[in-house]
């Protein structure tokens, strides 16, 4: 805009911008202020959790840590891993996120690719067979009974298997494959590659943007999932971090006990400021739960914003 203006007026001094009216200025101030306020409301709770998890526990239990850490220390993070169940829950959460994401991404890409194969027997029918599952659900109880019948209750695979075939991801992958040149496949098959080789050697490496989108959504879903532990799992060794956090919020008394037990191990070195309190445990576990997302989210934001753009902007 400025360049065209300078070109048109043909003077080195750019034309002065149109003078903003009073209304414009007021609008701009109000607009910026509102967005600043909302951004603060969204961000402050995360900041609050973090500063409290590294502050002196006796101060944070009183709720006096509001703007910056008071009595900075990191021993909460050392101690919290001595809580019963927490290391295992962390392992389960990481495990389901990694395995689930890898399998979901591979399956979505593979199915998306396969459904572009016009020679496949009953292709249209089977595509609809999968897509239609987006629109109905038998309901909580029948699904629960099937899971039980299949032996998936109290089984790690209940976290992974139901997530593998995701109609929406398949649509995304299929649309993406359709935008790639068909000649890729023809050339590879001339060289004697079979369909699986064509997929893994030729198509998969060229699908990165859409795979990244699917991966981030899948990873966030897996990491955040709470309901499946609640419904299908009673075995404590399969609890996830989310579930443990929920129990920590609701079981204040047993939590204090656990804190004392854990503190007992470190009794000699733990002073008032670093002795675990229910508040400090909750805050610390919360930060453990949210930290991966805070780190990963800005890195991948580009991808999924683009993924959404792909869909929302027509033509």
């Amino acid at each position, binding site marked *: 805009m400025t360049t065209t203006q300078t070109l048109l007026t043909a003077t080195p001094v750019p034309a002065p911008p149109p003078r903003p009216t009073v209304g414009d200025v007021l*609008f701009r101030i109000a*607009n*910026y202020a509102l*967005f*600043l306020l909302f*951004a603060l*409301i*969204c961000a402050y709770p*995360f900041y*609050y959790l973090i500063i409290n998890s590294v502050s002196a526990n006796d101060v944070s239990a*009183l*709720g006096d840590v*509001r703007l910056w850490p008071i009595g900075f220390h990191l021993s909460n993070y050392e101690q919290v891993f001595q809580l019963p169940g927490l290391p295992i829950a962390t392992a389960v959460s990481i495990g389901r996120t990694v395995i689930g994401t890898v399998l979901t991404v591979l399956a979505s890409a*593979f*199915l998306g690719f*396969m*459904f572009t*194969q016009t*020679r*496949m*027997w009953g292709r249209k029918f089977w595509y609809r*067979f999968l897509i239609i599952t*987006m*629109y109905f*659900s*038998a*309901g*909580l*109880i*029948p699904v*629960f*009974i*099937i899971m039980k019948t299949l032996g998936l209750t109290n089984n790690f695979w209940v976290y992974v298997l139901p*997530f*593998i*075939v995701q109609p*929406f991801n398949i649509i995304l992958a299929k*649309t993406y494959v*359709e935008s790639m040149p068909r000649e890729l496949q023809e050339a590879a098959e001339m060289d004697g*590659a079979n*369909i699986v080789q064509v997929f893994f050697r030729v198509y998969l490496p060229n699908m990165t943007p859409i795979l990244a989108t699917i991966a981030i959504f899948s990873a*966030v879903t897996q990491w*955040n*999932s*709470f*309901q*499946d532990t*609640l*419904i299908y799992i009673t075995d404590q060794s399969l609890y996830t971090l989310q579930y443990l*956090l*929920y129990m920590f919020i609701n079981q204040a008394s047993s939590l204090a006990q656990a804190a004392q037990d854990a503190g007992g191990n470190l009794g000699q070195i733990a002073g008032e400021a670093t002795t675990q309190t229910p508040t400090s445990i*909750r805050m610390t576990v919360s930060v453990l739960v949210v930290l991966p*997302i*805070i780190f990963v*989210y800005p890195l991948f934001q580009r991808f999924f914003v683009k993924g*959404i*753009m792909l*869909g*929302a*902007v027509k033509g």
Partner: protein
Amino acid sequence: MTTQAQSQVVLQEAAMGNLSHQSKRRRGRRFTPAGGRTSFTLFLCILPFLVLAFLFSYLPLYGWIYTLYDYKPALGLAGSEFVGLQWFQMLVGSPAQMAQIGQVLVNTLAISFLGIATSVLPLAFAIFLNEVRAPWFRSSVQTLTALPNFISWVLVYMIAFSLFSSSGLVNDVLMDAGLVTAPLKFLDTDQNVWLTMTLWSIWKGLGWGAIIYLAAIAGVDQSLYESARIDGAGRFQTMWYITVPQLMPTYLVLLLLSIANILNNGMEQYYVFQNAFNKEYIQVLDLYVYNVGMTGNNLSLATVIGMLKSIISVALLLTVNAVSKRVRGESIV
């Protein structure tokens, strides 16, 4: 696999719009591959995934037969007593049960309607953010406000707990300032539950919901704005006469889908926020099914409610789709 995840997927798919049209491109070219794969071999490659979909989506439909039995998991279906339509009669038969179901339905609809009423907020958010000129400010706002969408409801509840419980930050600040003498009960109360639940949904979803509209705004033909400015349109006029109409198709698709999903609020949010004080007003259908079936151990009655809910939801979806086809000439599913 949660209802929420599903509904989000449905939303996104709707936003993708004419997917089925796109898939019709690039067909027709057939060639015989050197690898000589038959079409049935190709099918065998995807068979394992079809089996998964069958197991987790189709097979459970068979479970609707439990509605006709007094199903006891220990006895299995063969050992359970066949009771015909007893559960359906029970649902409408006893006044107490009717009152409870009625309250659950009122909660479900109230929370859904509040959600629909506030569905213009992401739209407004996107339109006003588009008026912000500084790129760094825009992208920071976008990043920070979309962040809550990526955390679980458990963590949202944890945040609510540390900020709004009787010993939480907000009450602390209010007491310090001398504005209140006793802590306000934000969480342990049945007052304004529908409203507070809606506010938490907005906190979690507003920034993310706006992204789709921001993408749509980015796709608007810039010459529309230029010609409007030449015609002397001011800031608000371009917003009202250009941006808003351009976003309407996206908004309508999302609106219709939220109408189709009016009975599906999901249960996670309400499960984590429920307590002895707010239980009466927070129980939505999805949570009620869980409470009756899993906590109350009445699997058959819970299946009946879940089944009716699913059937009504699919019917609503088909209706809304038909309306969309007639009015806008475009189907949404």
